[in-house]
């Protein structure tokens, strides 16, 4: 399963996130994601989700390391310019 920006992902506990932007650091993908409610409306919960590949499964984990977030933010800012 590939995660791509512009997609909605459903997690094992039925939580859904919309993927807004993808940054890549050291071949690792980090998605700017917003949690969605049951009507696919964005909530005020934003996270940076790190993509993890494990055997045949795709997992996501919230990234909280500020140094990594800083690097990721630089990329998001550049990509956000394209959305203007």
């Amino acid at each position, binding site marked *: *399963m*590939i*995660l*791509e920006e*512009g*997609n*909605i*992902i*459903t*997690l*094992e*506990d039925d*939580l859904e996130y*919309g*993927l*807004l*932007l*993808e*940054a*890549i650091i050291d071949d690792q993908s980090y998605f*700017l*994601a*917003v949690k*969605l409610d049951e*009507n*696919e*409306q*964005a*909530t*005020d919960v*934003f996270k*940076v989700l*790190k993509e*993890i590949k*494990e055997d045949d*499964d*795709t*997992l*996501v*984990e919230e990234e*909280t*390391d*500020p*140094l990594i*977030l*800083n*690097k*990721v*933010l*630089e*990329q*998001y*800012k*550049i*990509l*956000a310019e*394209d*959305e*203007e």
Partner: protein
Amino acid sequence: MNNSVIERYENKLNELQNKLQEVIYNRNFSQLGHYDLLEENLKEEINKTNRIITIYNSIMSRIDGIDTNLEQDDIDRLIDSINFEKRNLPSDLASVIDDKLTKLKEGKDFGSAGEEHSYQWYLQKREELQKIARDSISTMRLGMGLNRPSEEIERQLKEVNRIINTYNNLIMNIRKVKHLKETKPDGYEDEVNRLNEIIERDKKTLPKNLLEEIEEYFKKEESESKKKKKGHKVEGTRKWNLTPKQKKILIGVGIAAVVTAVIVATQALIPAIVAAQHASNVSALAGSMVHNSALWHTSSAGVQTALHTLNVNLGSLMSSITGQEALFHGATGVWTIGGTELSAFAANAATAAQAAAAKVTAISATAKVLGIAGLGSLGTGIFSVAKDKLKNKENKTEKSKKTEMSAHAYEEYNETYLRMKKFFEEKGATIALEDDIYDMYDEISDDEKLNELDRAKLIFKVGLLRRKITRQLDEESKRKQSHNKSKADQPSSQHTLPNENKIYQKIYNYLEQINEKLDTLGPEAVDIDSKKLTDFNDLILNSKELTTEEKNRLLAELSVISEKMAKAESEEPNLGGRSK
């Protein structure tokens, strides 16, 4: 006691044999006929005793050798055959055998009553017994012409081996059951039931403490496995129906939220450099708050709530750093920090932050994370390095010429990049696109018109897009390979799927027609509403007849139709979501 019973028969056999020797000796020197009869009787008695001992030993060996991994029926059959043979034995020996069979079933054969031994103890005991058995071979008394360790040692060794083997088989079978339940291969339920029967049977033959050891073993294994498991599994993905405007707003809010998180997290890491930190924190926070407020007026109710919540959080952070009150005035919709309106405060904070940062000479790597001012400009990484290099170059006139040239080149490359990105988002990855983007990447790397900063930005964006294109093509190729392989493996009589291209063509042509009608005649000319669009979306996503590339192309067409419909209806943006 068991040993003394069979030993009586062995002793009896020895005596009979000795007597026979005497009789044979005496017969040779005597003409009396009664020695013949005596000899005959003795031989018969010897054979009988021999037979008893042989049967007894054979039965005991078979009981010791019973494999507890066998099915219950097989074990019952073995026990039945043992019981059948046992009827040829005298009652005292039969009773010993009965006792052994009972203990086998109850698992109380080894060890003294009430004493519990760990698995490690049994392993050690086995080593000791094996040593004794090896040593005793050379010192055991001769019986029947055979050298062997004492029967007690042999018996104990067999019992220890039985316990160790049963323990290991139990662990192996429990693990097999867990694996089957996780992987669920065809017919796994029958196998699970069979293994569970064996497990239950084996559990009855082991001491309770060993069963507890096994339970503890699996608990530990599970807890360690849980620790290793990271993250949440993604069960599914689907296309998100966002307009570009909606996406832009959410990205803006999202980046602001992450900036806040970084500041909070970094503050926890850095206790020192208070003045510079506070200054840059305040500036960054104020910048974020201004940005959020600017977005607020153009956003839908849902986003407004999100933005306001964000500002409230930022405001409280601001208060804790500056010690000044951050207030939102509901009537005017204006934030004030310590009485100063937000925008003015932000401007002052930026100036103060720059001044403070200039004063700081020793800044740790993590302190740099906070940066100086603005949203996401956080002072480290390739772009800042490029910025620094730029700062140190030539004089002003030359610099401004080069900057202008670079900006022009950047614009051109960026336009091409945006066109490629749009194509990729709408139509998916193609080999031609991949070739083009690789060429562009090389061109950018070598283009001397670009300055370091512009080159770095372009390389980053183009590189990222290139990676996504290649990744999608690789996935599609893998999927096709596995599809072709499964097709080749199918028997020829099996029903095959309809022709994929035809279905794709049909749907694509239909969507193209709708698009054209929307362009030329407007939404009134097409019989399609948002519900139909959603249904179509689901149909395409769930179709087994379409490849990923075909699905992506169709969804891109559908997305264009959706945008045109939304634009024509001129609604206030909802944030994605299905139309009701």
